[in-house]
């Protein structure tokens, strides 16, 4: 038992506590306490100390979440790694029970909210502290983008975290290159394993073979931000249904200069573009935006946990390319498409299909261009299917 942690909780007890498996209600210099299924009434200060000392996990857990000034997104993310989930205010499960623990008593950073007049109270539910400690003692692993994050316990309830590529989850640590600075990580995320530039962090081409950690929670947040900038904040706001999304045509209307024409892209071509650039094989994010607020795009949004809240620069660039090369009727194979297919076929035959730089759409082997052509051919095949059946029946 860590004496200073008990002391800290005793000091806070006079203000009342309702957090993650423990409630303390101060009453005329005495305390009513509930820890898990056990209740204690009219405890003196000394008795309170004794009771708390007999629940070291509850005490160290409370201390861990109160000894650092976590921002709300960071706290919620770190607790989510332990299996906790946000409970909506309307959720009947958000009332106290021994199986549910609450974050609402936490010192959330009150300024961390875009609309400060509507700062919500955030409750979380999930496995109780005992269950989580047992799981953490074995190591809890969660995927985020292309990395896996392992959370585990060290002494006095302190958590440590290790990050590696998801493909390296079972690799021995000794076989991995150790990264020990955010600067080194930022350099690593900018290049693929074969040295190509990754213009966006969300392209699923993060190189493997490295390990970062173990590190404390605040450093984990920095690591995740270097891997996937602002992903925790966007995920957090999306969890609470408070994220503002920029849909395609409103984004397109905003454009100027060389990007001004993209607002003319047809909905069909837009669908091809989304399939080409936003599918899980092209981006680890989950697309929240539609063509307009009320008009969804008929393409799966993706299985990723990190929300995509607006068409990205690569998508805008790609759209510009297709708008300038697409005829008014997108459901036709154009001369450009035929030449493109022929160039790909010739290159495959010659064994020269270097995809070049991902952001270079002049290259016929650019993967997004190939995806787009594929989406278009599938679309045309589908709309031609009845004609084909009709022809076959004759």
């Amino acid at each position, binding site marked *: 038992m860590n004496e200073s942690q008990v002391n800290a909780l005793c000091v806070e007890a006079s203000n009342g506590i309702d957090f993650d498996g423990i409630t303390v209600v101060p009453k005329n210099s005495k305390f009513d306490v509930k820890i898990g299924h056990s209740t204690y009434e009219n405890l003196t200060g000394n008795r309170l100390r004794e009771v708390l000392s007999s629940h070291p996990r509850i005490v160290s857990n409370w201390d861990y979440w109160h000894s650092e000034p976590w921002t709300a997104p960071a706290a919620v993310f770190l607790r989510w790694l332990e299996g906790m989930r946000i409970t909506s205010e309307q959720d009947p499960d958000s009332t106290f029970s021994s199986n549910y623990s609450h974050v609402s008593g936490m010192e959330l950073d009150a300024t961390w909210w875009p609309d*400060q007049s509507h700062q919500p109270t955030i409750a979380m539910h999930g496995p109780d502290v005992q269950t989580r400690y047992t799981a953490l003692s074995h190591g809890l692993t969660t995927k985020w983008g292309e990395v896996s994050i392992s959370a585990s316990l060290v002494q006095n309830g302190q958590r440590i975290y290790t990050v590696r590529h998801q493909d390296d989850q079972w690799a021995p640590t000794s076989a991995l290159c150790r990264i020990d600075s955010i600067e080194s990580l930022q350099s690593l995320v900018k*290049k693929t394993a074969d040295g190509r530039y990754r213009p966006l962090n969300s392209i699923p081409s993060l190189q493997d073979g490295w390990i970062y950690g173990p590190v404390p929670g605040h450093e984990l947040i920095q690591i995740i931000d270097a891997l996937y900038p602002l992903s925790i904040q*966007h995920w957090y706001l999306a969890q609470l249904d408070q994220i503002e999304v920029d849909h395609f045509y409103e984004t397109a209307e905003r454009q100027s200069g060389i990007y001004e024409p993209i607002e003319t892209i047809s909905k069909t071509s837009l669908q091809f573009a989304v399939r080409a650039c936003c599918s899980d094989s092209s981006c680890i994010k989950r697309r929240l935006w539609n063509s307009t607020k009320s008009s969804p795009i008929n393409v799966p949004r993706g299985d990723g946990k990190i929300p995509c809240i607006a068409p990205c620069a690569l998508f805008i660039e790609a759209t510009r390319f297709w708008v300038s090369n697409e005829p008014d009727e997108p459901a036709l194979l154009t001369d450009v498409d035929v030449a493109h297919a022929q160039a790909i076929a010739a290159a495959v035959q010659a064994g020269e299909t270097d995809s070049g730089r991902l952001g270079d759409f002049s290259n016929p082997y650019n993967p997004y261009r190939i995806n787009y052509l594929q989406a278009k051919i599938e679309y045309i095949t589908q709309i031609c299917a009845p004609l084909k059946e009709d022809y076959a029946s004759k």
Partner: protein
Amino acid sequence: MNALVIAAHGSLLHPAASEPARTHARRIREQTDFDEVQVAFWKEQPNFREVLRTLTADTVYIVPLFISEGYFTERVLPREFDLDEWDISDWNSDGTSAQYATYTGTNTERTIHYCGPVGTHPIMASVVRKRARLVTASLPTTESIGLALIGHGTDRNPHSQNAIYYHASTLRDQNLFKEVQPLFLDANPRIAEFRTCFSTSRIVCVPLFIADGYHTQEDIPNELGIPSYTSDQWVPSQIDTSLKLNYNGAIGTNPDIAGVIVQRAIDAGAQPSLAENLEIPVTDPVSIDQ
């Protein structure tokens, strides 16, 4: 709570394009007490909109990491940061004199100070001079040295050349170099004309670009007739028996730029505490050269 947002271009093609913004942000984060220091890019992640959606400070300083006033600072950034009330006249600028304009954020009541670009700040001349001094400090004082300020320039936007002319004029007035001339990739006087623009026996070339990339590493050396630039070192070249040339990469990678970014925010009212090793460049040529 206050936040400093460094708004930069970034690139879908060149990995070095965003490096200066990230490096300066890291330094400012470590050496000042801004509550939040965030980078935001036009072409990379996090982009301007993504940053806008997560800003929580009640006072925000947006500092464009661009060389000149122009299309990006006047149209793209105000639009992407939802500065609905933005009007170019709010800067009251002659093309190089923008300081800042202040707005209230849409739906947030947040105060947003939209600052002029880094490249046009008067202390940028000091950064250029300090960089050039790395070469000239070890040379005999009798040697005749010219300073070439190299910019991109474009006929499509007259402002794009103004910053280069502005700093050239300042440096010329300081009489530290025998000649100071601007040269441009895509406007007159062009880089390839450097021999006719200078009569000195040595020219120190400083490209006023934010990041190293194709222009500073290939285009400009090619125009100057010197080898491609690949390192962060000064490249000395003997052009012929009567002319030597020293070339270095983009000024935007210089560590002093972090100080210029902070100064932009200070000009707009920020009062950050600075660590001793974060120097704000000064305009006084004597102190900078010592």
